[in-house]
């Protein structure tokens, strides 16, 4: 599998964030699947291992987000989390739920792309 056609589950409650993330991933040659609620996140996760990577903007989502991250982790899906409010706490907690990289918002498109590429390549 090349990084160019990786399927990336993109989760964000903020519509504008979701749109910008989707556009960026699309431009970089990835295939983004965007969801903007926990319910949709749950549905996507329940569908079984079908994505190569998950990018999750945890701001605005309840603590249930960690449960879905656990499921993704069991499926072997690498997770990149983003937060603008509690980066240290998110790093600590995220590590316990399979999150491999936490980026603090706002981040740069180049930085995000590099982190995604690295995670996709490692698998």
């Amino acid at each position, binding site marked *: 599998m090349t990084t160019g056609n990786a399927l990336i589950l993109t989760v*964000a409650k*903020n*519509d*504008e*964030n979701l*749109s*910008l*993330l989707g556009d960026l991933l699309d431009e970089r040659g990835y295939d983004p699947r965007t969801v903007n609620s926990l319910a949709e996140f749950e549905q996507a996760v329940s569908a079984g291992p079908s994505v190569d990577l998950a990018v999750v*903007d945890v*701001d605005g989502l309840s603590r249930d987000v960690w449960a879905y991250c656990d499921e993704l982790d069991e499926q072997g899906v690498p997770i990149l989390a*983003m937060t*603008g409010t509690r980066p240290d706490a998110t790093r600590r907690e995220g590590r316990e739920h399979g999150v491999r990289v936490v980026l603090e*918002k*706002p*981040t*740069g*498109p180049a930085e995000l792309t590099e982190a995604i590429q690295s995670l996709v390549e490692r698998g």
Partner: protein
Amino acid sequence: MPEHGTRVSTGIDGLDEVLSGGFIPQRSYMLRGDPGTGKTIVGMHYLVAGVDNDETALFVNLEERQAEIERNAESLGFDLDGVEFLDLTPSAARFAEEEKYDVFAPSDVEQESFIQDVVDRVEELEPDRVFFDPLTQLWYITPDEHQFREQVLSAIRFFVERGTTVLFTSEAVGHAAETHLEYLADGTVELAYTEAGRTVSVPKFRGSDVDRGPHSVRIDETGLSVYPKLRPGHHETWFESEPISSGIPELDALLHGGLERGTVTIISGPTGVGKTTMGTQFMKEASGRGERSAIYTFEESMQTFLNRSRAVNIPVNEMLERGTLIVEEIEPLDYSPHRFARKVRDQVEEEGTEIVMIDGISGYEVSIRGGEDELTRELHTLCRYLKNMGATTILIDEVGTITGEFTATGGKISYVADNLVFLRHIEFQGELRKVIGVLKKRMSDYERTLREFAITEHGIQVGEPLTELRGILSGAPELADEQAVETLQ
């Protein structure tokens, strides 16, 4: 597209004159100034000039909405119908949005969108001229100074390579962004609003000589006008330096012929002595020869002047009808020296006016809004121009008290004049009388004696030289001997 070698008009005559014809095509120019100095108005003139010239003109607005701009334009009498717009202002809906993005910084998001919008519109329209207002907005959507410079430079190149002449405004006076923009632009036009009034100057202009200024600016219901500083050395005409007769033999005798063309005469004296009437007498005589004169009255209303002149047998109504006289009332607070000079220039160059009277120097001084040195400088410049153009200039200067100690002129302006004619009241044998004399005459000799004069319903009457009196200038002369009484009576 303007023809090769021609200039791109700014749409403002005076500014084109200052720039030796206008902007050089396919270059970029920065328009700088504090809020309210008229930058957007200059932009409107610029774009409308393009439309009038069958060019494609694009307004890229980054701060004011298109609807507001069009409203303002209408109130100033601009028709922006043919102007294309690219509205890059943030929408009001943006403010009302509950959620705004935070995943990336604005400089990463807005910049790309901005650039794409501009490129798309330019490729669609291929504009000949574009106005960015204000370009300093780009500063807030670029991540750092280096990228800002790069973006601006590449934007300018993008336009210039497509044959577009770019004018952009800078709103942030003193801001680092402006320093970069000024460096990158081919020229800078600076608008200012000072104690002396509105001005425009051109501190930078690659590729051509310009008149840097500062020059006067006026904003009114017709838009923005520029009145270039008068440069007398740039104006010259050949003329015969002959004396102009007053039409009164005794007065001509006093002046050894009259007032020479191309000279400046100050007629000075206290209030009510007849200075203006004396000046108008020369115009009456000139009118008889078909020559045109102009009177600029700073202190008296036109109606009062006309009434007074008619009362002393100066046919001003006929002169006005024949076109040999124009009288303009000047409100000094409405005029800068440059604007007034422009008015005089138009009279001299376009209407062929040969005698110009400024009544009076005190009123003109109010328009200067500076000190005595400024008055001398501006008056000198205007008089120098008039002399170069062969016009005969009469300046009315009110000085001194009714009688008493003699004062030739007020202040330092006497050096401006080639001729100095003074009028005085004297008290003699219980009556208030008037005398006229010449203190200075550059182009010819003159009578050293004084003459009595009177202003009656028949006009000005000038008597014989007052050789029999002494101490005239004290205001209370004495007879030299008995015989002189008969002369005066």
